[in-house]
């Protein structure tokens, strides 16, 4: 779950990481008031996307009326394809230096890794390798003081600045582990006078750990279909093509999409029905797929634990209840495949043996 900047900063503050004075505004009137309170302000639209400045989503002003007007224009409008529901109004910092700090998970060492650079404020991909400090944290011991010192040493920091960054590193690490974060990123971390302040916040919480963080604000990133699928225990992603897809297993679903593409088609969705494809789940899955208004549907089942006759029965039952207005191509192999195919024949469908034959057929249907 990605957090909006303002939520990330609220968490920063909670964990003791310095952030600029200010707060979120959900109405233009609030924006007016905050700028009136803090004076020289930066107003930032809150969307889950970078490059907000270039898109016109950020403004500097000391005038509450200007703040209000800007907020009024932004709130409810679309920016980089996303609706702006909130804006963050905060004190404009005198920026002397911009650093970069982030903690994420390293798949190779299976440990948290700190990324740190004295070249912050830009896209992190653009930072030259020699300016990027990578420090693998020993998971068992966490971010001890010596580790934080070592990171600032490698960054080339000294004096009080180094001490402040060390403190921020320890707090950021605490937040990273306490909140089950996948990513905590401060870019830029700003040196302003004697202070070191987090001027932006990018925080991603592990969806699989949200059950133990009920106190966190929830940010919905999923489309309506994705939400519905999630409730049904299906892995579902909206895509742009016109062939509805259902398969069992993430890898095979991806492979089905690839195979469709290989034959010149495009999938309307990713839908992994997993192991259990009972009648209700199958019906709901088809409903989700139909909502995308596809020109054809491809069902790709490799029965292992999933039994082909179960899948066929579920599909047949759905088909009997409601006509499916587009061609359905089914590939069905594995456990009890003969019985499954018989059941499908009864509802007028001839199952295919292989994924590529089925995909080819679906692409053909979708082109007509």
């Amino acid at each position, binding site marked *: 779950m990605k957090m909006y900047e303002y939520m990330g900063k609220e968490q920063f503050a909670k964990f003791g990481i310095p952030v600029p004075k200010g707060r979120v505004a959900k109405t233009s009137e609030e924006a007016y008031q905050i700028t009136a309170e803090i004076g020289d302000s930066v107003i930032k639209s809150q969307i889950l996307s970078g490059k907000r400045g270039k898109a016109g989503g950020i403004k500097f002003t000391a005038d509450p009326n200007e703040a209000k007007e800007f907020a009024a224009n932004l709130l409810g409008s679309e920016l980089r394809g996303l609706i702006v529901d909130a804006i963050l109004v905060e004190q404009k910092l005198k920026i002397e230096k911009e650093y970069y700090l982030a903690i994420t*998970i390293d*798949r*190779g060492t*299976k*440990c*948290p890794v700190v990324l740190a650079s004295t070249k912050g404020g830009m896209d*992190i*991909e653009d930072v030259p390798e020699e300016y990027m400090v990578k420090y693998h944290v020993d*998971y*068992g011991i966490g971010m001890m003081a010596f580790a934080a010192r070592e990171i600032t040493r490698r960054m080339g920091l000294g004096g009080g600045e180094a001490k402040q960054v060390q403190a921020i590193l320890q707090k950021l690490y605490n937040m990273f*582990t306490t909140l*089950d974060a*996948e990513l905590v990123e401060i870019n830029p971390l700003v040196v302003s006078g004697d202070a070191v302040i987090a001027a932006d916040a990018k925080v991603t919480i*592990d969806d*699989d*750990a949200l*059950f*133990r963080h009920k106190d966190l604000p929830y940010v919905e990133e999923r489309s309506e279909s994705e939400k519905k699928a999630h409730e049904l225990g299906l*892995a579902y*992603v909206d*895509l742009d093509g016109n062939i509805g897809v259902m*398969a*069992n*297993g*993430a*890898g*095979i*679903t*991806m*492979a089905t*999409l*690839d*195979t*469709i*593409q*290989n034959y010149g088609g*495009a*999938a309307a969705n*990713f839908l*992994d029905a997993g192991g259990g494809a009972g009648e209700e789940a199958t019906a709901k899955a088809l409903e989700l797929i139909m909502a995308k208004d596809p020109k054809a549907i491809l069902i790709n089942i*490799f*029965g*292992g*634990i999933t039994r082909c006759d179960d899948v066929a029965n579920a599909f047949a039952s759905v088909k009997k209840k409601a006509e499916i207005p587009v061609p359905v191509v089914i590939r069905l*192999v*594995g*456990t009890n495949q003969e019985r499954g195919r018989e059941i499908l024949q009864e509802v007028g469908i001839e199952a295919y043996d*292989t*994924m*590529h034959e089925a995909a080819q057929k679906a692409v053909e249907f979708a082109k007509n």
Partner: protein
Amino acid sequence: MAIYINENTNVLVQGITGNQGTFHTRQMVKYGTKVVAGTSPGKGGQKVDDIPVFNSVAEAMQNTQIDASILFVPAAFAKDGAFEAINAGVKVLVMLPEHIPVHDAMAIMNYARAKGTTIIGPNTFGLVSSGKCKIGIMPNQYFIPGPVGVVARSGTLSYEIVGSMANAGLGTTTVVGLGGDRVVGLNFIDVLPEFEKDPETKAIVLVGEIGGTAEEEAAAYIKEKISKPVVAYLAGKSAPPGKRMGHAGAIIERGMGTFEGKVKALNAVGVEVASLSFEVPELVKKVLK
């Protein structure tokens, strides 16, 4: 021979009395796996078929030699179950559950490393040394003995490929499911040297997907250390960046882990990448000649 597990591996099932646990225990036994014990807190003393149930892994190990364990518990309890097995000294632990919090996975992997336990998964179908021992949930019928070692990041796709190989008369030595999560116990570079050492394995099939850099690292490793032929198939060619395709690991982030990058890295070290899964058996037959 085979890697990690063989016909002498004594297997424990953690959570044996649940529906899933009991069903798959029977499937494993049917395959020929030596399931010697199960655990279920509070149900010690019961039996599942002929298999004794204990209250804890420690108690099971007091009574029986145990080499490997498979975990059938909900994701929220997986950490405790994994730590219990590692703490008790299990050498190979198969973790099926998906949706295990990634910080829990980190904790498990670091503890396992300290104690010398090999973790398969999480979010895996398990592993099978064909004809000898299956620890997992894969359908029995496709895993027939033969000369090909398979290591895969995803489950059903592996069945698809192993199935198409079996149809083409190509059996497998060991098939290892690494698991679909971001943090898993084994990566390709951990399994490749095992296949390299295994005299029965004549060719290796690597089933990868988008996300992460495991395939790129595998390519670098193959270049330096692997003399046996390797064939690959990668899923996710058509996936848009930033979207998670079911597997937590299958996401293209910050331009890392793209399909094209992986294919390029593998091709550069002489690994042919099949465009469609059904082409894998042909490519394997070609390299086996």
